[in-house]
């Protein structure tokens, strides 16, 4: 099986409102930056392009098609799209390279969530017969999950507040963070509840932005002559849409994906977990059996800035950055989709 190298990555700063930017204007700056890292001109210089986005976020039909205007697609390019986080676009691109159909791929994700009411928009991803017509928003569903955790004695509100405090403090060193502050768990607990038992700080903010990555074969990475890290495994698993059938206090799909991706084959120095709610970081780190030796979300994670459809790819990019900077030798990146951690993807990234 062909090894996959990550050779370039960039994420825009997460902002609460990107203003008048359209999708092309959101995407182009991050693409320009990954091209610059490799010294290439545009998407003509890679073999395959795959993006992740969701037109419901900004309320613009075919925004994902309009986004192709950012690529330079003349003469025509090989291009694909997933209506999911770009972490799944990464998955598709890896398959493309492993099948021998490409030696390199540009992967990008973008999300402009500010124009709509994100928790309400996300209600429309639920089962269309019984749940979507009830308009159950994503925060309310996460609150049901947090209640199960608290009343089952699996976590305390202080545990959740500790997650928030660590995220805010870690984010102080992350220039792309939207929310960063030196706050303690006591400061968080002093906040009023928002959707009980969640406080506003337990919920990821609504953010606009994009991320992009270039992956390739090891031979191509050597040809480009840039520092790279290796993707040694990737897998994703999905649970039933019926929330009543799932154990919401565990994440079986994350655990299975991590096993299949080969997480257990070595030490995990850093884990980037896509937890849009504080209690979900606890569910994920327990499902993965992460201990003291692993630094979890050292840049603050998505509680510090949640780029819908781009932050899953950004989790992989963050691990890549730590590895090429020499701060870690091996790490995992997790991405999630759907309500209450329904669908989970785990990538293992290692030093080359």
């Amino acid at each position, binding site marked *: 099986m062909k090894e996959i190298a990550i050779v370039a990555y960039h994420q825009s700063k997460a902002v609460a409102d990107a*203003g*008048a*930017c*359209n*999708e*092309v*204007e959101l995407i*182009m700056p991050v*693409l320009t930056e990954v091209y610059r890292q490799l010294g290439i001109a*545009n*998407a003509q210089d890679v073999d395959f392009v795959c993006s992740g986005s969701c037109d*419901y976020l*900004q*309320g*613009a039909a075919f925004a994902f098609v*309009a986004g*192709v*205007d*950012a*690529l*330079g*697609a*003349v003469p025509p390019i090989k291009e694909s799209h997933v209506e999911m986080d770009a972490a799944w676009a990464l998955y598709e691109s890896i398959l493309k390279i492993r099948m021998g159909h490409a030696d390199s791929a540009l992967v990008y994700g973008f999300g402009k969530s*500010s*124009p*709509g*009411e994100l928790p*309400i*928009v996300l209600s*429309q991803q639920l089962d*269309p*017969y019984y749940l*979507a*017509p009830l308009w159950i928003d994503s925060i309310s569903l996460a609150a049901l999950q947090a209640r199960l955790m608290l009343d089952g004695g699996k976590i305390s509100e202080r545990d959740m507040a500790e997650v928030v405090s660590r995220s805010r403090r870690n984010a102080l060193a992350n220039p792309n963070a939207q929310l960063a502050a030196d706050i303690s768990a006591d400061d968080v607990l002093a906040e009023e509840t928002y959707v009980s038992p969640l406080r506003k700080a337990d919920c990821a903010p609504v953010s606009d932005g994009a991320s992009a990555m270039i992956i390739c074969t090891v031979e191509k990475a050597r040809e480009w002559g840039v520092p790279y890290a290796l993707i040694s495994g990737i897998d994703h698993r999905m649970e039933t849409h019926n929330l009543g059938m799932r154990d919401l206090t565990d994440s079986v799909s994350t655990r299975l994906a991590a096993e299949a991706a080969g997480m257990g084959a070595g030490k995990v120095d850093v884990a980037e977990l896509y937890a849009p709610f504080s209690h979900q970081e606890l569910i994920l780190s327990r499902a993965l059996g992460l201990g003291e030796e692993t630094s979890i979300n050292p840049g603050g994670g998505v509680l510090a800035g949640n780029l819908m459809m781009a932050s899953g790819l950004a989790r992989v990019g963050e691990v890549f950055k730590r590895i090429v900077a020499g701060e870690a030798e091996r790490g995992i990146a997790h991405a999630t989709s759907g309500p209450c951690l329904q669908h989970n993807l785990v990538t293992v990234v290692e030093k080359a």
Partner: protein
Amino acid sequence: MSEQQEPVTGIEAPIYLKYNFTAGAAPTRFLTQVKKGVLMGQRCPSCQQVYVPPRGSCGACGVPTEEEVTLSDKATVESFTIVHIPIPGNPIEPPFVVANLVADGANISFIHLMNECVNEEVHIGQRVQAVWKPEEEWDYAMGNIHYFRPIDEPDVPDDKIGRMPVAGWED
């Protein structure tokens, strides 16, 4: 056996989602000009093509189009079709002409309506000009141009369509 049920052939599940939509920075600059009755294109710094309406990038090169270029409201027919079915909201009675037009000074066509023409005589290379709505009705919309009508100018040969300067035939 349970009794025979009527098949359920549909349920009502209306969706209402509210958005504060924004056109984008480049389209905003274009729409601001069109509200003043001016067609403003944007030039690609790489291939030099001028786009109207601009979206902020050259789709061919994938680079931002920042240089703004004032265009003429005269244009050339690049292609056309005669529509025989009514389209809701379209003020023109069928059969009417939908045309791909290239404004003088631009290289990439846009789609608009033609009227005050003999449909059977519309042809590629034909010269047309915008018929604007009354100024008091101008908004941030391409609809400020009611339609394009033929003008008495020589046809543009095929190899010059999309290459007319902003001054048109006078150049």
